[in-house]
């Protein structure tokens, strides 16, 4: 089934008090957002977030009982199925997109997994974006002290730095550097009191693996490793054999899925356009085949973000596999970003 018939889901997450609800509140008020269904995950007995998101009250399904996490992702299945039923029955026929707001402690990976693997939901929804809000004032503290926070940043397609008006400029700069060091593949935006453009939230993130020298410079500057996270950018100059590459990556993710936090990139597999690869741990989004290349250059690039894995091992392994598969002319080039 093609993506055209599926509803895009945007997952909004971020640490406790980082401004998820404020952001949504502001964005949902903007014109053109009436066709959005919001699923809120309440933490604690009072569904406070639910009352705040008044505008969307009708489309809001409250996910009962705690985290959207491995343990209760049935709630998410139920919430989305309920929404789907309503859409199909014509009660909510105008719905064009879905927003899931998670709790501050939630791990977004199980949400992605649930949507991609559920036998019914996978045909009706796809994950468009994972947006993570980071508090400019407390963000650094959370990153250093809360592993949940680092995990959220790793999974993000887009990072929104909130409360920049309350923090000093150099603190914000430091935070941006640290965020880019942890997750070089994500976009970083800022928002003061939830004032972000809806277009930022609801357009697919640019799929480029390599961003700019700025990104590399940022990761160099920050120096210190955050929670053993390292990232590496791998490029190929010639088209890749998809079968060979798929064998290697599936084996790697099977063995090290827990530690490879993120795989993201554009791959040239010899077709007219590149393949967009996006993975969170061992969950790989269905690869997207683009019609044409966004830029003139046709270079496959791939960013790996991992924990407790030496980037050199990845390269050595990929080289050995490429050699064995008789594609020696197309050995990878690697650049360690952190």
């Amino acid at each position: 089934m093609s993506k055209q018939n599926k509803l895009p889901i945007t997952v909004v997450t971020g640490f406790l008090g980082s401004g998820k609800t404020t952001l949504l509140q502001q964005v949902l008020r903007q014109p053109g957002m009436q066709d959005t269904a919001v699923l809120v995950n309440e933490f604690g007995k009072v569904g406070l977030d639910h009352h705040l998101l008044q505008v969307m009250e009708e489309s809001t399904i409250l996910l009962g009982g705690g985290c959207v996490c491995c343990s209760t992702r049935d709630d998410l299945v139920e919430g989305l199925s309920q929404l789907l039923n309503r859409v199909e029955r014509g009660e909510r026929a105008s719905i064009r997109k879905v927003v899931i707001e998670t709790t501050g402690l939630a791990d977004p990976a199980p949400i992605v997994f649930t949507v991609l693997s559920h036998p019914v939901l996978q045909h009706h929804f796809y994950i468009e974006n994972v947006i993570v809000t980071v508090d400019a004032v407390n963000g650094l503290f959370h990153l250093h002290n809360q592993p949940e926070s680092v995990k959220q940043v790793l999974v993000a397609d887009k990072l929104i730095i909130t409360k920049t008006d309350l923090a000093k400029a150099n603190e914000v700069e430091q935070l941006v550097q640290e965020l880019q060091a942890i997750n070089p593949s994500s976009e970083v935006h800022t928002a003061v009191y939830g004032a972000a453009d809806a277009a930022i939230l609801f357009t697919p993130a640019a799929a480029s693996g390599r961003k700019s020298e700025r990104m590399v410079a940022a990761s160099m500057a920050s120096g210190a490793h955050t929670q053993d996270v390292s990232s590496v950018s791998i490029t190929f100059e010639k088209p890749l054999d998809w079968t060979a590459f798929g064998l290697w990556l599936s084996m790697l993710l099977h063995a090290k899925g827990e530690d490879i936090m993120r795989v993201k990139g554009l791959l040239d597999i010899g077709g007219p356009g590149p393949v967009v690869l996006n993975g969170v741990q061992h969950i790989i989004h269905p690869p997207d085949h683009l019609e044409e290349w966004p830029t003139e250059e046709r270079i496959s690039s791939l960013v790996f973000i991992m924990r407790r894995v030496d980037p050199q091992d990845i390269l050595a392994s990929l080289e050995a596999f490429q050699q064995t598969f008789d594609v020696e002319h197309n050995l990878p080039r690697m650049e360690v970003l952190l």
Partner: protein
Amino acid sequence: MCVLCTGAILQVHWTDRRTAEGAAVPGEDQLRFYRRGRLHRAGLANKILCHYGLKVEDWNGSKFVLSDRKGRQEIIEDLGGLWPAAEKLVGYKLNPLDSVLIGKLKHNV
């Protein structure tokens, strides 16, 4: 759903999404590409699996059969099922970052 074995395929593994969905390929050619792709995949996989004493073969263009030298076999659907099945047959975790494996691959032992 396969009508012969009633095996339901609920999930298309990401490595099988090779062409753009809905791409028009002439009927006969499509089948030929499909069969050739599967043989190519089995051939490449065997270059790795031989280091573990395993072998994978295409079975009628619908499944893969993974076997070890003692004759034990596992039927697998796609690459998502290959690695867990391989681990089951060899009895330990397969690791592509393993320096012994990389050494063997590099020197083509």
